[in-house]
């Protein structure tokens, strides 16, 4: 079964978030990547856009299905993984590292209370 990194927080929509100071890196979980299958397109919102927790920030599309992406934490989009847009298969190959999708600048971390830790996430998949 999918390995679930312990240092990340998870949304019920299968996004993960990693916090480093005031920067949140966001991607989708291995469970989500495996459910979608081969990813062929990732489309995300533009830089500088302000998003509230659980707002839609893009779409991810596989050969078989399309799924909306939601930010697990409020913040401003400061970076998009440009390499991923051209190589969407990164999500299948390594969703927790080179398959990251966007980085957000965050002001506070109280949104994290709404998220799941790795053990809680494992229970819902």
């Amino acid at each position, binding site marked *: 079964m999918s390995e679930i990194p312990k240092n990340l927080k998870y949304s019920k929509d299968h996004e993960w978030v990693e916090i480093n100071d005031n920067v949140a890196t966001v991607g989708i979980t291995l469970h989500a990547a495996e459910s979608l299958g*081969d990813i*062929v*397109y990732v489309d995300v919102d533009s830089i500088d856009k302000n998003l509230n927790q659980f707002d839609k920030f893009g779409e991810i*599309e596989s*050969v078989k299905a399309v799924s909306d992406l939601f930010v697990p934490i409020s913040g401003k989009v400061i970076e998009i993984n440009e390499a991923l847009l051209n190589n969407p*298969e990164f999500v299948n190959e390594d969703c927790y590292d080179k398959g990251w999708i966007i980085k957000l600048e965050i002001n506070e971390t109280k949104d994290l209370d709404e998220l799941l830790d790795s053990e809680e996430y494992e229970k819902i998949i």
Partner: protein
Amino acid sequence: MKKTILNSRHKNLDAKLVDFAGWEMPINYPAGIIKESSFVRESCGMFDVSHMGRVEISGKNAKKFIEKILPIDVNLLQLSSAKYTLLINDKKEILDDLIIYKISEDKYLLVINASNTNEDLEWIEKVNDDVSINNITANTSMIAVQGPNALDKINLLSNNSIKDLGRYKYKELKLQNYSIFAARTGYTGEDGVEIICENNDAENIWDLLIENKIEACGLGARDLLRIEAGLHLYGHEINKNSNPIDIGLGRLLESKSKDYINHDYINGEDIKKGTESLAGLVILDRGIAREGNEIYIDNKIIGYITSGTHSPRIKSAIAIGKIEKNYNNIENTVKIKVREKFLEAKIVKLPFYRRKRK
């Protein structure tokens, strides 16, 4: 859910299993749809297609019966040959597309879609006079071996038994010790062999093919491959009310026999008056057009998508659409409504992919 004999093999290979027409079937294995499709395009892959219906029609009047129910010219169908055709009922409804194999003068095999098997059988039984109709789906298994290396691989395992087997021909032969029916047919746009065998041998044959580096491929790859090859899928490009000429299958209506149930329909004038046609579409924007999406020219709906996917060969999204004939011009650009967005697409000639002949 019904399971094929090979179900445990799929589970052992960690396949993702889905409900397909009431059968638990592999949509893909861990390699994924794109890699599996490339196995078939570049070397050799195989599909469990045991869920497809297999029906034998036999008896001294079998030939007459085939002439009555199918639009083929039954006199052109030679022994040990196969033909792609349509099953159309007396209401001009297409019940299925299928492959018919001529086993002997008084015996034929029909391979039909899993999703249509019951309805096909109901209709065939209804118009039966005195032939024997034998549904052998549950007693047999079927594996499609496809790809540029498929014939070599099967030759290697069968003492060169299919060396001289022509396209759309079949042969009964020994694959190592196993008796099989091997037909040079398929549904991927590649060359290959479709094997029908006894259930008792199915797992051993599957294992033998795996040992010989033939990669297991799921129905997801099969769908992608058939879209690239511009092949119709019932329920998508072909529906009950489709006009065979509109969907590019007019060439299948070859019967001139007065005994064919639809003689008047297929030889009449009305069938030529259809207004629709199938178009190949290459999507120029990012995103996949999928079944049901509307197709527009100048803000007017001219049709809808019947199948769509992403093609690793074309390196973009591709789709087949049913559109009004007078707009179906190569190089015309159209807009496809995908959720809230409009994707630009270009009309191209089908198929998207054609294999290189040896």
